[in-house]
């Protein structure tokens, strides 16, 4: 309780990642699933920044910066796909997207 160490940040990041994973696995709303993916990416970022701080090296922050750029690209393309799918099927529930399964 007294001192905040690296493992505190690692555990917080793992909890965040687990919440994101639960969101992707359990929720059926595609928007919420994408938000959960963002949560997982942020958990990875927190780990990177915590290690970067722990070792006093800034390259972890640079990698986290790249992750953010990647997340922006992923969100743009993913949400565009979601819009296209919604125009087609009038739903964002992924249980109803089973055209390839038939």
């Amino acid at each position, binding site marked *: 309780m007294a001192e905040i160490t690296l493992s505190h940040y690692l555990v917080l990041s793992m909890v965040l990642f687990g919440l994101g994973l639960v969101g992707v696995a359990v929720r059926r709303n595609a*928007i919420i699933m994408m938000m959960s993916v963002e949560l997982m990416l942020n958990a990875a970022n927190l780990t990177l920044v915590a290690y970067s701080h722990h070792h006093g090296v*800034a390259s972890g922050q640079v990698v986290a910066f790249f992750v953010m750029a990647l997340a922006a690209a992923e969100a743009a393309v993913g949400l565009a796909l979601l819009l296209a799918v919604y125009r087609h099927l009038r739903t964002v529930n992924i249980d109803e997207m089973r055209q390839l399964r038939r």
Partner: protein
Amino acid sequence: MEAITFWILAAGTTMSAAAVVLPPFGRNPVHAAFALASTLFFLACLFVMLSATFLAAIQILVYASAIMVLFVFVIMLLNLRKADLGEVRITGMKVVTAMAILLLVGKVVKVAWTGSHGAAASASLRSGPDFDAIGSVGDLLFRQFLLPFEMTSVLLLVAVIGAVVVARRRFGRGVE
């Protein structure tokens, strides 16, 4: 003082992340989006605590603003009614999945906790005033990581073009 701040921020992060994911709170996508925005804000505060001030600024500018605006815009464009959201069905399969993931997280947390309390890692986080976040990040970005940095711009360009092409209104009319 640092410990108290960390615990407050950690609790805020965890609770708002749970509000994104868990069905009773995150049923409405708009509520989930706001919960996600507050999670990202709390994470930016944690980045400040880890003396990553540049990343904290980028987190607020890119994540909590730009990406969240994108999400909220898409939610607005989809214009979902209550019926479209569907019921929250808690099936046995979902419960088992969630339990398995929580078990996995618990295991990893245990390993992280016991493993990094060893000799090297138990030292408290360094926070020297000489740790110049923006300067060192910029230096690395434009020297060692110059090629990935330029590739990122190509990636973003491809993503923008791809998003416009995919989300175009008449996309796939001939395919139907």
